[in-house]
């Protein structure tokens, strides 16, 4: 356990310094653990694998968006676990399930792995992006999907570099909020 913590924390800290490869490795490793975490818990209440994958993606998105809240002087796994658990409770609440049905332990149980790499969620990225304001959609398309640098994206969109960065960040937050809203609507309707 100690080595996993050290490995993940090393990747996280490098990612916070802007190391894209480390960030990718971190999210990849976390996705396997999150998949096992959510699958086990949802299976106990008779929910399917797609639903678990929805949660894996929501948690990954939250981890990415909230990474500024990680304090590198603290261990990483409790921080990850708190987000994973928070998303699970939130999910069970919106999908009107009894919280008591899914036992959620406090102890960090993030060490099981599920390597089903091609797993898919029910979310359609294209459709989610289409719901964003055009500036944010454009910024995410250029920087996060087409892989243009921020400088290139700025000149292509005719806005400043900091505006591109702000639009990417806000756009990802908006994306997460859209997912949460759709879930709520889906349940209500």
């Amino acid at each position, binding site marked *: 356990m100690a080595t996993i913590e050290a490995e993940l924390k090393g990747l996280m800290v490098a990612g916070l310094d802007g190391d894209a490869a480390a*960030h*990718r490795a971190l999210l990849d490793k976390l996705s396997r653990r999150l998949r096992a975490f959510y699958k086990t818990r949802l299976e106990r209440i008779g929910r399917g694998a797609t639903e678990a994958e929805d949660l894996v993606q929501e948690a*990954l998105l939250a981890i990415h968006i909230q990474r500024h809240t990680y304090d590198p002087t603290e261990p990483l796994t409790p921080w990850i676990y*708190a*987000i994973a658990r928070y998303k699970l409770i939130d999910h069970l609440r919106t999908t009107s399930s009894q919280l008591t049905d899914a036992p959620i332990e406090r102890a960090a149980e993030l060490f099981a792995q599920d390597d089903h790499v*091609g797993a898919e969620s029910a979310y359609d990225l294209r459709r989610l992006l289409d719901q964003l304001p055009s500036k944010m959609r454009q910024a995410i398309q250029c*920087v*996060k*999907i087409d892989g243009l640098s921020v400088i290139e994206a700025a000149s292509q969109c005719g806005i400043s570099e900091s505006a591109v960065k702000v639009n990417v960040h806000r756009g990802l937050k908006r994306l997460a909020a859209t997912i949460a809203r759709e879930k709520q609507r889906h349940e209500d309707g």
Partner: protein
Amino acid sequence: MKTDELISMLSTNVERVERHQVMRTLGAAILIGGVAAFVAMLLVLGVRTDLPKTSAVTHLPLKLVFTTGTIVLTSIALIKLARPGGEYRTPVALVALPFVVIMLLAGLSLASAPSSHWDEMIIGDNWLVCLLSIPLIAIVPFAMIVWAVRRAAPTDLVRAGALAGLVAGGVSASAYALHCTDDSLPFVALWYGGTIALCTIAGAALGPRLLRW
């Protein structure tokens, strides 16, 4: 969407993250909330007019030590508790320290005074103004602090809300102290302590609704 696609997207052009963002956002919110509280006190109530007098000069700092002590201790706890998982590693008992101290002092002060003075010492002149002003002045600081705390992604919304209410109450009471002419320690313990506790309870009740992210 495949999870791999999402990971690719999130790890393309990864920005460097500025450190201490949580602390700076929360600090700015408390500062702006403090200015708003001070301005509200200045416009609606006004600074106490007897300031050069000795009794005011000795008692005001004592009140401010209590209120700012609450702000400082609670902010330190909140910076940790407001983050994911913060509730598991943040000892919050320390935030009660100013309250314990002020109640002990109030008790000592009552014990050393004749009981015929107790009513006056506890009820004071303007308890109703105090009771209404501190929660009302706390509204803007509370809104600012909630905004900052939500950006830190708390996972225990009740506790984070309570501490946000406690800081806002402390900020508000600090501003109110500059107006208030009731200087007895039992008054401060009961009415300041009580209204700040009220803000804390309100924060705990509103936390789950306001702090969801």
